[in-house]
Each structure stands twice: as C-alpha cells, then as structure tokens.
C-alpha cells in the first residue's frame, strides 16, 4: 500500500530537515555539517531496496532544495542516483557485515558532495574551490559514518514497520 511508504517518507523528510536546520545546523565537524537526509535515503536503500532508495532520494533531495533555497533539482538528482546505486549494491552482497552500512553511508556522502559541487560548477553557481570541496567531502563522509550507528537502525526499523502489506490472491 503506497500510503504507508508516503507516510514514512513524509515523516523522515520533515524530521530530518528540522534536525538539519536546528541541531546539526550549528553542530559542525570542523566547519562541515552532516547530510541527515542522505543518511536516511541510503539507510532505506540498504534495508528496503533500490526502488525505495531512489524514491526516497528524489523526495528528500527535492525537499532539501526547496526548503534551503538551493538550486532546485540538483540535490534531488544526486540523492536519487545514490539511493538507487546503494540499493543495487546491497543486493549484490550476500553476507553483509555490520560495517557495510557505515562504509556505504560514508561513500555516499563523499560522492554526494563531489557530484553536487561538479553540477553546481556546470550550472555556473558560486561554489567552494576544489580544495574546500574535497575537505567538505572527506569530513562529510566521516560525519555521516559516525552518525550511521545511531540513524541506520532507527530508519531500518521504521522501514520495516511501514512496509506495504502483501495481498495474496488465490
């Protein structure tokens, strides 16, 4: 049932955005802030698959663009691609370890910052220089990796609770 997924995405997006702009807006790691909505997107992709990963990426990315006054669609594009990729990669791993979500979240944060920077430059937006971009990407990856043990289990549990119930027909 699609409304269960819609409810889950709305809940995670609103909570994530409010936390990003209040608590984590000030709690930076050497000047770099975490990407909570990307954390949630990748966590959903790992636990629920590439379909929800891509949908969550688009929803949360677009919400980020709209609320933060960023160039519209850029974060949506980046998060959609990463949500899908994370879901596909997870399906290839037969025996996942506890480190897998941490490594995937860190890699996704690193790629998201670099991709966003590259697209911003292509669109002629004022963006940080190469050195600052690499620094933000590395620190952002570290920050998201540190937050994964707290966020991933929570999002995975919510994903399971809001999973559509299958209807079997004779």
């Amino acid at each position, binding site marked *: 049932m699609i409304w269960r997924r819609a409810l889950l995405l709305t809940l995670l997006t609103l909570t994530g955005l409010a936390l990003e702009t209040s608590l984590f807006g000030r709690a930076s790691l050497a000047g770099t802030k975490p990407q909570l909505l990307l954390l949630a997107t990748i966590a959903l992709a790992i636990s629920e698959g590439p379909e929800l990963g891509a949908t969550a990426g688009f929803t949360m990315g677009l919400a980020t663009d709209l609320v933060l*006054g*960023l160039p519209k669609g850029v974060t949506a594009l980046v998060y959609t691609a990463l949500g899908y990729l994370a879901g596909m990669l997870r399906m290839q791993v037969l025996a996942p370890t506890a480190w897998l979500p941490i490594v995937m979240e860190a890699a996704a944060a690193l790629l998201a910052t670099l991709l966003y920077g590259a697209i911003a430059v292509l669109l002629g937006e004022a963006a940080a220089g190469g050195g600052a971009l690499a620094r933000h990407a590395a620190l952002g990856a570290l920050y998201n990796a540190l937050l994964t043990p707290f966020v991933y289990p929570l999002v995975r549990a919510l994903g399971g609770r809001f999973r559509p119930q299958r209807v079997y027909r004779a």
Partner: protein
Amino acid sequence: MIRLSDSKRRTRLLLALLLTASLVIITVDFRTEGDGVLDTIGRAAVTVLGPLQEGLRKIFRPVGSFFTGLGRVPSLQHKIELLERQNALLRSNQEQVGDVFRENASLRQLLAMRQRLDLRTLPSQVIGVTPSNFERSVFIDAGTRDGVRKGMPVVGGEGLVGRVIAAGASSAEVLLIVDRSSDVAGRLTPTGETGVVQGSGTDLRLELLNPYAKVAVGDQVVTAGYDQGVYPAGIPIGRVTRIPPGRQSLSKVVSVQPLVDFSSLDYVLVILGEAAKR
C-alpha cells in the same frame, strides 16, 4: 505473478522517471531565476517547518553549542591552564548568569543600532542555520505576516548581517554577507573610496574601483547605499585586515574582517523601510 525481470524493469523505469523529473526541475528553475512555482512551494515549506525548527532549537541548543565547542579545542589548548584557574572561581556564577549577560549585551547593541539607523526595523531571533556546506544563511522567526519581504536588509548589533532571500508566513531565510554569492556596495570611511564587498565563505574581500585608492589596515568599511541598492548607506560592514603587497592592475582588492560574529548570531533587525514621520 510478477517475474524477477519485471521487477527489475519496473525499478529501472522508476529511476529513469525520477532522474528525468530532476533534470526538468533543474531546467525550469534555471529559466525562472528564483520567481517560479518551485520557489512558491519552497516558501510554503519554510512556513511549515518554522514552528518545528523553533521547538527543536530550544531543545537542542545546549547540545549544538557543545559540538561547536569541540571544534575549537585544538586552538585553545595553550590557554587551558589559565582558564581552569579562572574557571574555578567563576564557574558557579557564570553558569547561571552567563547566558543572560550575553543576551543582554547583544540586545543592548541591537537597540543602539536601531536608534542609530533611524529606519523602520523589526527585531527577530535566529532560529536555525542552513546545513548546506555551499551556502551561508540563517533562518529567523519573522516572516511575511510581520511585514518581512524578499530582499530586505538584515543587521545585527555590530553591523550588516545580510538580506532576506526567502520569506514564509512566520519565518524567513537570510543570506549572510560572507556567502560567496553575496555582493554589497561598500565605502571606506576615512577616504570615501567605494567598491564591492564580496563574501568568501568565511570572510570578506573589498574590490575597490580605484586601483590607486589609499587604504590602511584597520579602516572601517560601511555600506555605500546607492539609490537602487538593497542596503541603506552607512551600516558598518567590517574592518580592513590585509592589503596584498604589489600593484594591482584594474582594481585593488583588500581583505575585510566582518564586524558581526556569524557563529554566535542570536538577535537581528530586519530593515522594513524608511522611518515613520514623527
């Protein structure tokens, strides 16, 4: 029955749809330049999120301050011994009244600035900071309901803060002058030389129109306030901190330290317009 290949095909189709939608949104946004339907939706979203941010800010402020403090530890190590001695004496009092004193000082400065400007202003509190690593902006607890509109200048007790870039009903987003996309017409107070003050992410740089302009470290920079400009004239912006040696060709660029400490911004004034006639 849905076969595995059907499921894969459906996922790929969904991905293609979402990526195409993103690209269409990027194109539409690029063409409308901040005045399209997407920006209207964005402003509505800011309005919905405002009260939630306000509540969370109150709950999490001590936690946020703790994390911010962690980042400063390396540069403060040599002062630890001295501070520990002072702390033992002051801690009991300071913990109770420190916040009140800071707030009081900040509000006094804001009041002085308000009297000095002689403009219609609206006091407002900072309720959030953008989490983006590419943009320097803050959210304030005043919106269109209070008369705040896009483009209005915002000042703090020490000087210029920025301008409103999006306004919801009860909250608004303010682009800080240190943001890379911020341009402010500036003037050096001792000589009257004018130029453009641009943000560099953390500090400011002043590009003087006259390459032979006389400028010294410590000179104050204020808004130039041209007729068509966003900012009224005479609002303090910062002080010149560095003048690169050697001759520069078409213009002269100097480093400027903003007067406002953006890491601890609490209360601001939104300039609504000219002062009411008395």
